[in-house]
């Protein structure tokens, strides 16, 4: 047998474990292993190594770790539950603000135009002012969300490791 055949067999031995091989390849490999002691030994070594890896690596979980974790998780869940109404209120306020913004848009534009007539401000400035009227609630909500996230991250850092 030439070296290429042994190389193919060794490749298939590994491939079978890592990603699987086809039925034809399996049959070819089995036939080869029956007639090749060194490849059969390699296949056996691979099987032994993986069997030991699956069954021989024991770790003892520290006593009480699961209970301590449950306790911390429950505390955190409680914190989150308490915080939920606040964030819900924030979103309700934003929604109301947007709804009012939409409802009052024609009047606001009339008011801005009136100011523009009185002051002679360019139309671009008036439009920018009108845009701000729409953007402010969103900017406000985004700022609060960012601040809340930063606060939570700080909390985690100070209570963590």
């Amino acid at each position: 047998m030439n070296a290429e055949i042994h190389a193919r067999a060794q490749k298939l031995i590994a491939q079978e474990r890592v990603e699987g091989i086809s039925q034809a390849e399996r049959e070819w490999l089995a036939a080869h292993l029956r007639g090749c002691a060194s490849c059969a030994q390699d296949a056996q070594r691979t099987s032994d190594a993986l069997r030991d890896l699956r069954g021989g690596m024991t770790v003892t979980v520290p006593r009480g770790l699961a209970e301590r974790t449950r306790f911390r998780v429950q505390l955190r869940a409680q914190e989150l539950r308490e915080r939920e109404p606040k964030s819900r209120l924030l979103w309700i306020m934003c929604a109301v603000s947007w709804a009012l913004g939409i409802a009052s848009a024609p009047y606001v534009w009339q008011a801005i135009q009136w100011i523009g007539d009185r002051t002679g401000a360019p139309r671009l400035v008036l439009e920018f002012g009108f845009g701000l009227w729409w953007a402010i609630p969103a900017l406000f909500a985004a700022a609060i969300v960012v601040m809340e996230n930063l606060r939570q991250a700080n909390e985690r850092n100070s209570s963590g490791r």
Partner: protein
Amino acid sequence: MMDDSKALAKGLQRRDPELLDQLIEQYQYRLFRYLVHLTASRERAEDFFQETWIRVLERGHQYDGKHKFEAWLFTIARNLVIDWQRSKKMQSLEELTEREEGAAKEFPMNEPSALHLLLSEEERSGVHEALARVPAIYREVLLLRFQEELGLEEIAGVLAAPLSTVKSRLYRGLEALKGAMQGGAA
């Protein structure tokens, strides 16, 4: 299985306390074992174990139920460890462990390997010693594949690495493990 995963995803979204208790109980061994191998320290593994479950609570809505829960759990755990290493201005796990294609670096000398720590507590066995000689990035994929029995794509998800990288690490890791079990250097 898919129905179970969907139910799990819904429960996590609701932050169902009973479900979380059950998951902690069910996955405590596997998660702790994974963290011990990842952090090389039982004490740190304990901290990260707790942090991981808190993160599961907080980010439960991100679990889509389309993948195995344990793959998602290990991803969270691994990301926490990497974030911590970065925040401590340590090398990332990749840097800490080795160059992808070249000879591997082991854990620094002042950081005893988790496997060595385990050996002091548990019966010495060939596989412990052999695995300790396998470069850490290969060890991680070997453990995820053959101990945690994750699929190749799930491992790629946990590692945030391409499938080809996962396969290449597995082949190299398998060779290294066989070599180490024969008593040679990995």
